[in-house]
């Protein structure tokens, strides 16, 4: 294969001028593919369950079943005020993790060949899943907050606090989504990808989401205090309930942005590798 064989005449006789993927096209394509991923969410029983019913049930479970017992150990008048930020993050984690399954399914079925044969920028397919995950999660977060308000959640947040909290939560959702995109690109089968969901399920339990870390045994406490979910939760709790935030805010941002900065390029590379063979 030499460059000389790529002669000018071939070009001149092209009947169709070489199309360039413009920004406008990419945006239009992204819109179409986000729509596709959102449709998947609505049609997919698992994703709906993870995104809507499970968080609801967890909220009610924590407040009404464990609440009485746990309230004793928490220096706060109402356990519901303590636990809602935790349930919000748990919700986000679950629902983001289902992205792994969507990505693996795309990579292991013929549909990726179809997308790759189209005149589109391929990674927009993944972007569709990411944006759909963000939308899905913000929706279930709103749902959790709505129900929480009904059962006695009384946040002290100002409007700006709310905006900041939504920002932190969105960052967290993005982080969880991209991590699960990465796992989805690593996994060889949808089953393997759904195993990742299970792993994610446990992280929030080993944080300050449901009980203060001071109540945990020393070894677990060391982990809980230094895993990314604890500062994120403390930040959200501080913003919504007015509890002290301290170093949690910058730690939360460093954790999430740091993880994103690593995971996105790794995912891009994995994607390229899986779509060129």
């Amino acid at each position, binding site marked *: *294969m030499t460059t000389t*064989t*790529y002669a000018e*005449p*071939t*070009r*001149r*006789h*092209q*009947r*169709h001028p*070489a*199309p*360039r*993927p413009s920004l406008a*096209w990419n945006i*239009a*394509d992204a819109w*179409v*593919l986000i*729509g*596709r991923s959102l*449709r*998947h969410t609505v*049609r*997919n029983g698992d994703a709906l369950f993870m995104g809507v019913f499970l968080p609801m049930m967890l909220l009610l479970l924590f407040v009404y079943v464990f609440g009485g017992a746990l309230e004793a150990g928490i220096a706060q008048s109402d356990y519901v005020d303590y636990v809602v930020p935790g349930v919000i993050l748990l919700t986000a984690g679950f629902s983001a993790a289902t992205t792994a399954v969507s990505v693996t399914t795309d990579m292991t*079925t*013929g*549909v*990726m*060949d*179809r*997308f*790759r*044969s*189209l*005149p*589109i920028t391929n990674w927009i397919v993944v972007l569709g899943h990411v944006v759909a995950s963000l939308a899905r999660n913000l929706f279930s977060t709103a749902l959790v907050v709505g129900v929480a308000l009904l059962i006695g959640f009384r946040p002290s947040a100002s409007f700006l606090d709310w905006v900041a909290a939504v920002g932190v939560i969105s960052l967290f959702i993005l982080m969880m989504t991209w991590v699960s995109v990465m796992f989805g690109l690593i996994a060889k089968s949808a089953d393997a990808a759904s195993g990742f969901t299970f792993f994610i399920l446990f992280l929030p339990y080993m944080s300050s989401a449901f009980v203060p870390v001071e109540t945990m045994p020393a070894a677990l406490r060391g982990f809980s205090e230094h895993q990314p979910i604890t500062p994120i939760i403390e930040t959200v709790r501080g913003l919504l309930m007015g509890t002290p935030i301290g170093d949690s805010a910058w730690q939360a941002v460093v954790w999430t942005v740091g993880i994103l900065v690593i995971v996105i390029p790794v995912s891009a590379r994995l994607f390229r590798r899986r779509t*060129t*063979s």
Partner: protein
Amino acid sequence: MTNSHDYAIRASGLKKAFKGATVLDGVDLAVPEGTMLALLGPNGAGKTTTVRILSTLLPFDGGEATVGGYDVAREPGGVRHVLGLTGQYASVDEILTGRENLVMIGRLYHLGRARARDRADQLLHQFNLADAADRAVKTYSGGMRRRLDLAASLIAAPPIIFLDEPTTGLDPRSRQQMWDVIRDLLRGGTTILLTTQYLEEADQLADRVAVIDDGRIIADGTAAELKERVGTERVELTFASADDARAALHVVDRTDTAHLHDDATRLSLPVDAPDDVRHVLNALAAASVPVNGIGLSKPSLDDVFFTLTGTHAPHPPTPAEDGTPTGARPGTDTHPQTLSNSGAQAR
């Protein structure tokens, strides 16, 4: 050889190896605009690999290729713009409905929402999928999926289409429908590269046939040229023993085109007219070689391979999974056409 721009699809010296195992060993193809080339070959010959390389899905190790005037390696975006691909395995979104699939793909071809919808409607009708249009694809049968997949690659009316074994696994009626669609496309001026394991399919549809085996093109010509070498009809004689069969092979004395099957008791040779059959039988009677059975069949891929290479096809497809359109395949005898109910002169 004419200039490369006369060819909608052109490949020369394509090479591809997977982990050191050579799969394509210098494939040359040239498909003039508005015509159809059938790439005929057995399992594992390299048909899908060739199609995937030409449709920019797979990088290749050597040689060069252009599709629609675009260099496959350097201008994949251009190739994707002029190409519709129907892969060997349906590549549609299982969760979406048939209509949603088509509209989505139309929009990704930048047809615009309204035109994408119109085209989707039109294709759903044309492919007999209107009733199932609003059902999730995961509820579709294999044949419906294939039709939807083909519809998806036609949505932007691309000037060039690749079809990788489009009729494998289809029942005879669906196969006929698929052939009709393909003929329509050809009439409309579309350039088509089709892969198949069936000589008859290549013969029915294609202007030219390239036979691929083990990553090489071993024959390239019109279907008529190919059939001239292989014969249009073959008579298959069954004998009581391998000795009889060998004796018969000696008697008919057509070692270039007649061949014994693997089981060594069946002999297959081309015939052009009913008289040919009589001559053969007379010769065998004169030499007192008893014939146990006789049947007529269209030449199979195995016959083509034998004629071209002197050896049998490396991996003859099993009849259970392929549903061969030729009816009979020497070596399987699924539907032997007997002389009495289907005389050679009828064709």
